[in-house]
């Protein structure tokens, strides 16, 4: 599904400016030693919303900066740290800084990050975080939980020449859990330029698995330098609450558009799609969603064709 996130930017900016106003008002009213939890919570929530929204809508400079504010506020909220006037000053400066950053982004200007970087260093020093290091992603998976990972796998054209076979990797992925495969066909060139020993397909997988990210990365270990690989955790289910989750997606159904990030030359797109056997039904589309058994048989057929 291709959804233009920019339609939500206006509301995001509006609520972020409101959030900053709230933070400022509450911070100005704070007296160290006399603060009440609800005030701290209100400030935390405003920062948390700005971080969440900016990360979702791709304003990473805002998200990274707000992350340190949020960490400090969370520690105060949890009673791990008492708020001091130094904290309040730093937070007030950050509110001004965020306002400036958001104002630039709103008019689509490149934000000046110098002040944000300086402030962030001060926060990191205060928090005892190694400078520039993000707080770690959680790595422990003691609980048996089913995670959903999004895996983008785009082999470089020469992949076959390294002796690697994407199909085997896809099969291995499928062994880790329940796999959904989207194959993108828009990089397939015109038939005259098509060479059988180069890999023009690329894939997006959604994998539901009890295994961790490392297990997924190991599958692609050999081809790290021969492909663009991105593994991202996007959610999960608690294992004893899987009701209704047993369905397996293996029917070709949804016709998908290519991801927006795919910057392929557009000239060959229509032809490429028409040439791809599985895209006959919708030649205007550049990607399809099919079960791995179908991909399997397709690759087998191509293999036989090449041998023949």
């Amino acid at each position, binding site marked *: *599904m291709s959804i233009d996130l920019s339609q939500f930017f206006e509301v995001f900016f509006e609520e972020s400016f409101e959030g900053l106003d709230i933070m400022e008002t509450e911070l100005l009213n704070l007296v160290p030693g006399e603060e009440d939890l609800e005030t701290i919570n209100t400030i935390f929530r405003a920062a948390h919303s700005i971080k969440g*929204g900016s990360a*979702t809508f791709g304003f990473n400079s805002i998200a990274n900066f707000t992350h340190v504010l949020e960490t400090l506020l969370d520690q105060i909220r949890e009673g791990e740290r008492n708020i001091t006037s130094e904290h309040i000053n730093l937070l007030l400066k950050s509110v001004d800084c965020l306002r400036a950053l958001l104002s630039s982004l709103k008019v689509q200007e490149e934000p000046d990050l110098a002040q944000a970087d300086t402030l962030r260093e001060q926060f990191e020093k205060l928090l005892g975080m190694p400078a520039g290091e993000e707080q770690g992603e959680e790595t422990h998976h003691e609980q048996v939980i089913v995670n959903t990972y999004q895996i983008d796998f785009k082999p470089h054209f020469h992949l076959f020449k390294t002796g690697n076979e994407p199909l085997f990797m896809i099969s291995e992925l499928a062994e880790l859990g329940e796999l959904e495969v989207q194959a993108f066909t828009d990089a397939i060139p015109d038939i005259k330029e098509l060479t059988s020993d180069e890999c023009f397909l690329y894939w997006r997988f959604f994998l539901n698995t009890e295994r961790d990210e490392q297990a997924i990365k190991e599958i692609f270990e050999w081809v790290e330098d021969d492909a663009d690989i991105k593994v991202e955790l*996007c959610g999960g289910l608690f294992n004893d609450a899987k009701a*209704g989750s047993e*369905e397996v997606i293996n029917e070709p159904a949804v016709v998908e558009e290519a991801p927006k990030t795919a910057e392929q030359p557009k000239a060959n797109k229509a032809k490429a799609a028409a040439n791809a056997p599985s895209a006959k039904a919708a030649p205007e589309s550049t990607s399809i969603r099919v079960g791995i058994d179908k991909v399997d048989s397709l690759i087998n057929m191509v293999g036989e064709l090449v041998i023949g």
Partner: protein
Amino acid sequence: MKRILAVDDSASMRQMVSFTLKTAGFDVTEAKDGSEALAIAKQQGFDAVISDVNMPIMDGITLIRELRGLPDYKFTPLLMLTTESGMDKKVEGKAAGATGWIVKPFNPDQLLAVLKKVIR
């Protein structure tokens, strides 16, 4: 058409979730905090609830606990939106009766990928 209750105090996130779900063919009702969501959920039935955790008035964990206690929501998928680092929140959410979680930030495809594990 399956009905989903989307709960978030952030208007932009709410709109994004709602728009994504509507585009995917779901019927969506929005609520801006746990308390509003609970009131709406008691009046109308839903096939799934997706809720943010940090919200004013009533947070997402409390909402999930309250909903799970209602006979109509005993088996309903209840998903929470949470940041990746929040393992504590996941444990807390599970104890409250959450079905699963969706990592923030997420894009529309990721939201649907997790959601369709519990609802079609």
